[in-house]
């Protein structure tokens, strides 16, 4: 946030003659800078701002807040003429379910949830298990010890999806592979997404016990795991965004790949479709098929020739020959 003065706090109900959209976005707890899906959503928003030249407004959530706070946040955006409005994270499900019917002319989207049945709500869903499957395969290919690790930030259904895909992908390459699995915290304690110290300790433990590739699906805690990888000179797999990009020069060589969850693409496409009038109602599924899910190839030295195998698997998933498990 810059030192801006007051922007419009109240506004007409979006009824200006010009059809210039104002885009609102409400983050999940953690907000901008979580190196995870909030950040990805922000990236999408920036793209909207840059390429579509639209007015944007992003609001943050507070830890431990109630549904009413979320309702007010969404209403604040809708009431002030922001349209479309994107809610980042399933935590907004209940709130959006109540707000959406009140603003039938506003287009809403929610990330990671499909429980709201409203005509003006688009669900942005991701097949994380598909991307995880691919990086699992990459890990198994890369591993010389036949021992790899998975670190989950918080043991929620969402993160378990990552785990399931990863394990299945690894087993596909090497059925006898050993996968060490560890979650940092348990819901409702969400500190596991932001405790790099523990992310580091756990990764160290995994490397000490023979793993040579670790996949951290743990938000910020993953940065600790990457440090451990660098110290141990072993492999690390990032999540959500391409962590090779944000890694330091010393760390880059150890980032094998990242599982990409294109929340940015999803947000951008959704906003664009609202502008085009081609907005899709109901579920929009992002997967390998439509590039909403992918793996990164920013460290080609590390990946070497395994890309062929991975791309082959990717095709099999897209074509439906392989269906990575969600649980």
């Amino acid at each position: 946030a810059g030192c801006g003065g007051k922007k419009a706090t109240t506004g007409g109900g979006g009824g200006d003659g010009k059809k210039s959209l104002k885009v609102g976005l409400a983050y999940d707890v953690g907000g901008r800078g979580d190196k995870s899906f909030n950040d990805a959503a922000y990236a999408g928003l920036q793209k909207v701002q840059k390429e579509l030249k639209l007015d944007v407004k992003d609001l943050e959530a507070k830890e431990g807040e109630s549904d009413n706070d979320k309702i007010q946040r969404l209403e604040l955006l809708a009431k002030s003429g922001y349209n479309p409005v994107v809610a980042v994270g399933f935590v907004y499900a209940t709130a959006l379910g109540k707000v959406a019917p009140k603003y039938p002319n506003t287009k809403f989207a929610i990330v990671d949830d499909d429980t709201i049945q409203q005509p003006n709500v688009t669900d942005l869903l991701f097949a994380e298990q598909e991307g995880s499957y691919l990086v699992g395969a990459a890990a198994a290919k890369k591993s010389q010890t036949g021992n790899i690790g998975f670190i989950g930030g918080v043991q929620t259904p969402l993160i378990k999806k990552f785990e399931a895909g990863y394990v299945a992908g690894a087993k596909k390459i090497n059925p006898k592979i050993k996968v060490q699995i560890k979650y940092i915290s348990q819901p409702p304690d969400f500190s596991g997404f932001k405790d790099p110290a523990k992310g580091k300790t756990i990764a160290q433990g995994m490397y000490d016990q023979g793993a040579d590739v670790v996949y951290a699906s743990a938000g910020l805690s993953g940065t600790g795991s990457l440090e451990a990888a660098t110290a141990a000179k072993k492999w690390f797999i990032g999540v959500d965004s391409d962590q090779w990009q944000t890694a330091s020069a010393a760390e880059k060589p150890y980032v094998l790949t990242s599982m990409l969850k294109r929340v940015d693409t999803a947000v951008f496409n959704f906003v664009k479709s609202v502008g085009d009038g081609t907005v899709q109602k109901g579920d929009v599924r992002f997967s390998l098929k439509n590039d909403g899910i992918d793996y990164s190839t920013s460290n080609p030295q590390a990946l070497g020739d395994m890309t062929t195998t991975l791309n082959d698997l990717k095709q099999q998933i897209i074509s439906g020959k392989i269906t990575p498990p969600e649980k």
Partner: protein
Amino acid sequence: MIYRLFARSWTRTLVAAFVALVFSIALTSIVLSISGFNPPSTFQAMFEFGKEPDSIVNTLNKASSYYLSALAVAVGFRMNLFNIGVDGQYRLAAMLAAAAGGAWNLPVVLHQIVIVAVAVLVGGLWAAVPALLKVTRGVSEVISTIMLNFIATGIIAYLLNPGRLAVQLGPNNIGTKTISHSGRVPGTPFPGTDLKLYSLLVLAILAGIGFWFMINRTRFGFDLRATGLSQSAAVASGVDARRMVVMAMVISGAIAGLIGMPQLLGESYTYSLNFPTGIGLTGIGIALLGRNGPVGIAFASLLWAFLDVSSQILDFNDIPKEIVAITQAAVLLSVVVVYEVVNRVGQRIDQRHVAAQLGEVAA
């Protein structure tokens, strides 16, 4: 005149609160100015937003949980018992009550009563653990309740699993089975908004009255206060200090059990991954701000909730809304300091007054 002003403890509290508020507003303004924002327009934006019907409802709803939480803390504070564990107590209580409410289908009224009773029971029992550790093993309740907060999280995590007490609520959310209509308490409409007031706000009011009555009108309340004012004098007067510790802690935990009820029965109907957390810790601050009195706490929780709610507009105006946290902390710290000073001045004036009235010059 000054004597009159300082004669009663509630006037002292009022003076302290006022001074602290002025101080905090000044401090907040300074911080805002230094960061390049305009304090008056910031406050005005907060105020404008805060008085919208939506905000009022949200403030009142929030204040009801805060109030119960602070009350729970205050029961302990009144006898110098630091129940830092309200947070764990209310979360565990809300979770188990939600699970019970979802699992058992009972007729209306009975259903609600059972849910609330489970919450009260769980809260009280969980609070009994540190109490018993204190009286039998001499473990400081400050440390044990902090540890028990963590352990409560572990227990909740263990139970809140599909196959145990949880069901899948959405692709990414789990929670206890949703409580059926017979167990819910419909909200009360409020003019100008379709947000509803939690009807169980009345629980907070009742608890407040009960607390006031207990402290000021019952023997138990007297014993409680006496123990807080001077444990040695209370023991000499026949108060059983160990029993008081257990009783106060259990009552505190029982009230803590109520914290989640307005939200649970009036809004979410399930204890899921996004059930509000941390209210127990907020309650500590509010209890201190309200000087552990039922009326003071009411004002304090309203103020706190108002600041929380209206902070949303700051974000909207690109002002870091954490300024509110600074205001809250400043109010809190300054109110305890100012109260200490006011109290000391008050006592001195008191003694002078007594001496003057009696015309005593020498010792």
